[in-house]
């Protein structure tokens, strides 16, 4: 419970927000959609910084790069026509698959990455598309790969002392083919058992820049370079996809929640299917 709150701020600029977070650190926290923070007991929070007035809700292309404001809701991502054309629409599909509509309307992509619970939907697909997060910490602005963000210690300061403002995807990811798979006990289940994402460029029948990312099975979303290496520079075949899937199976140590062995098995099946789906995607998409 957030019992000890003394003040709510409603800044309208990133600068003001960060200044407030710094001034009140370590007792300040960012509130965006509000779907995660309100239920996490933290008696030390005394200041809440509501960022709804800051211009961080956008999907745009600038200098070829895709820029997504951290405060963009899952539903906005799902609806974005621009996003539906980027990497075959993988990001908007991932956002549309977030459970449920009440969360899609309020939760944000920034919140999903900043508090990266193992089963969150966006980190795997962001990682598969080489996304970077922009973090403003005091006077410094840092850009670091989402992969590093979810794995490292940034979570300690993002949303508390620093503000995650946007995600950037390199221009070359626009033409990537990308397939996502989500395996859960039911459609009503927030906590997916497995996320599998496969993306690559297909040039002249050859796979390039493969990315294989699993989510929900390990503590953080995880790339599998060993599986990517199997595909790199080769033409697609069922047996190649199976080999890559086997590399995932061998390299995966599921975090010890229930059914670890089962999830390893399903993860490798989903990877194989995702690779097949990516390869069969219509190449004249863009």
């Amino acid at each position, binding site marked *: 419970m957030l019992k000890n709150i003394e003040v709510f701020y409603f800044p309208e600029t990133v600068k003001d927000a960060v200044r407030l977070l710094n001034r009140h650190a370590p007792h300040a926290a960012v509130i965006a959609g509000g779907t995660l923070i309100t239920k996490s007991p933290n008696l030390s929070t005394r200041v809440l910084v509501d960022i709804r007035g800051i211009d961080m809700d956008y999907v745009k292309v600038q200098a070829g790069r895709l820029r997504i404001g951290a405060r963009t809701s899952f539903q906005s991502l799902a609806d974005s026509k621009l996003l539906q054309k980027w990497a075959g629409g993988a990001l908007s599909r991932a956002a549309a698959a977030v459970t449920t509509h009440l969360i899609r309307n309020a939760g944000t992509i920034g919140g999903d990455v900043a508090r990266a619970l193992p089963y969150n939907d966006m980190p795997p697909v962001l990682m598969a598309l080489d996304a970077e997060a922009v973090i403003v910490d005091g006077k410094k602005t840092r850009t670091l790969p989402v992969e590093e963000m979810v794995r490292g210690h940034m979570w300690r300061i993002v949303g508390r002392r620093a503000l995650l403002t946007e995600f950037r995807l390199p221009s070359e990811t626009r033409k990537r083919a990308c397939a996502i798979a989500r395996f859960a006990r039911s459609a009503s289940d927030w906590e997916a058992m497995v996320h599998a994402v496969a993306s690559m460029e297909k040039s002249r029948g050859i796979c390039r820049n493969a990315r294989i990312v699993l989510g929900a099975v390990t503590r953080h979303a995880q790339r599998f370079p060993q599986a990517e290496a199997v595909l790199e520079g080769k033409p697609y075949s069922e047996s190649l996809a199976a080999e890559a899937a086997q590399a995932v199976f061998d390299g995966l140590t599921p975090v010890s929640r229930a059914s670890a062995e089962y999830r390893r098995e399903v993860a490798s*099946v989903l990877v194989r299917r995702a690779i097949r789906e990516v390869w069969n995607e219509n190449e004249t998409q863009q």
Partner: protein
Amino acid sequence: MRTENGALEGVENLKTVHRSVRRVDGLALACGTAQFTDDVDIRGLLTGKILWSPHAHARIKKIDVSEARKIPGVRAVLTHRDVPRVPRTTAGQGYPEPSPYDSVVLDDKVRFVGDRVAAVAADSPEIADKALAAIRVDYEILPAVFDPLEAMRKGAPVIHDQPDSKHIADAQKNIACKFDFEVKQGEWFSGADAIIDKTYKTQYAQHCALEPHVTITYLDGNDRLIIRTSTQVPFHCRRIVAQSLKIPIKRVRVIKPRIGGGFGAKQEIVLEDICSALTLATRRPVKIELTRKETFISTRTRHPSVIRLKTGVKKDGAITDALMEVVVNSGAYGTHALTVMMCAGSHTLPMYKIGNIRFDGRSVYTNLPIGGAYRGYGATQGFFAWESQMDLMAEAIGMDPVEFRRKSYIRAGETSPVFKAMGEGREGVPQTIVSSGLFEALDKALEAGGWAEKRRAYARQTGVLRRGIGLACLMQGSGIAEIDMGAATLKLNEDGSFNLLIGATDIGTGADTVLSQIAAEVLGVKETDIIVTASDTDVTPFDVGAYASSTTYISGHAVKKTAEKIREQILKVASGILDEKVEDLRLEGGMVAAKSGAACKLAEVANTSLYYRDQHQIIASASHFSHTSPPPFAAHVAEVEVDTETGQVTVLRYVAAVDCGTAINPALAEGQTEGAVLNGISFAMTEEMKFAPGGRTLNGTFRKYKLFNTLDTPPIVTILVPTYEPSGPFGAKSVAEISINGAQAAIANAICNAAGVRLYDPPFTPEKVLAALKKRS
């Protein structure tokens, strides 16, 4: 008696009954103006909270509430020393209840993680939490047991060792209840060509009514205890609270507001006794509102079961022998322990023609959450076993599973020895099937499910995704014969409207509407001319409450009888007004009409009787109980797709054909069926309460225990198969429970058809299915 187009004589000419009229409370619910228990603001309301046990089995050696009582704003703290010790059952059943008297309001022993330890009432929820935290309990931890088979063995900890309990079958062996019966027609299994011996296990599940349990109690100006509560059983509640707190019944009034679902979890005195105790201690209004987690753990659950079915079958399809051994996990207390266990047999066995029958039932205590009434009530567990076994038997003799079923099921005009042998916790009532649409439902379900084509199409599949189709047929009861009773009162108002006072309990089922339709039909008015007051123990006559699928069949008949008495009174007054013979008069369209063409409005009759001459209130009451419990029947067909690489099973389509006699309101009957079907499907696919080794519930939240949402729900096709049950009002039987019973078997049969593996332990999670597939290959 069926007419050419399928409609039933006597039903096709009805004006209100057998029409899908709008719910009489529909707009209030749609507009958010209907008042549920917590939708009132009461001045001076205290928050009541309960301290739950952290241990599965322990004695309370010492409980010190002195610090808690000192906290400002804490108005009462109750322990076992502060409340009467009256062993009783919390089961909402007719008196004397067939459940063991093994619980008290607060005890000096705890028997599961989540059992009651103490209760507080305070000015606010925060202060109540502080009070709970300040209570110091010295526990003597005892060994605990979680498996019913282990609990029955020598040396297992005795969960109910208190000397003052009553009606426990064998407390030393933790057997709450047992029941055996046998019908022997020849040597066991001597005539069988094949013997199938399988054990089926069903899991812990929770009702998950969207409204958690909530109760408000207060004293009125005459010091009477008023209980406003989310209950299915207001009259049993009044009686059991009075009994538990040693106050006279006349001092207690129970009021049922709108209820957000019950499904059996509220056929129980869960909060009303302890909340009342807090009101008596403080003389203040008190509200106890359980969280979703507390509702999962500390209310009631569906009894898990282990059912061994050993059956013998001849090549010609006759079932020669059936041995049914049922062990039901009662949890820490024995509420509904006998009756649920018996219904696993009494509401399944009669459907089959069997030679030798033996039923062996045990309800066993364990240190786990309490099993209680849950829609289907044992038949759900029983049919998973039986309708799975039907497929196995058919396979063993090389007979088509549909043909086998046609040979085996009871028909109209037939009886079963089980009806007499097994009642509700006691010997039953013999009966013969009068109305049966079972075979027609079977035909319709098979047709709507595309059975024949699909069985052919799915016979030889080679891909990763395999499809299959499975069948289950079902019965249930309509009220409890010679036990359940309902009553009604009707009175006429000046404008020709009526007040209908019914004890019957609408928990979302639409009872208020159905009963209004029945009254309106007899009185020749619209159901919107009937004003319903329900379930107030001071005002409405007695009714057992919403369970055992009794409302339409029993309470509905009481309403019909009451309306017929009113009709007589109306016609008598009208005959004076119109100067016509009573025999020449009828009620129609809000009027009294004579054969001669003369007519007068009901309003005129009302004003005459109230104001003009021979003044009297046109009012009547009637009660009803039945000597029979005519079964509704159903046939369900499930189509599934199995992903053989992940084990994921998707239900593609589900067909439910139901014979409920006359559907008083077809749309409501369909709605009951659709909801029950979906609950059955998620019970087959995902729902399961899980426990840590020490007995703590692991997944008591909607985050971890998943119900199906709109996207999970497969297309559900509902077909009402009309029959006419002469003992029911306008030919009606029941519909409320039966359709939750089919999914586990229908889906298990479909999975077997799809992928060649049979599962005996739902839920059919992808993990289990994949493991079974791997084992097979």
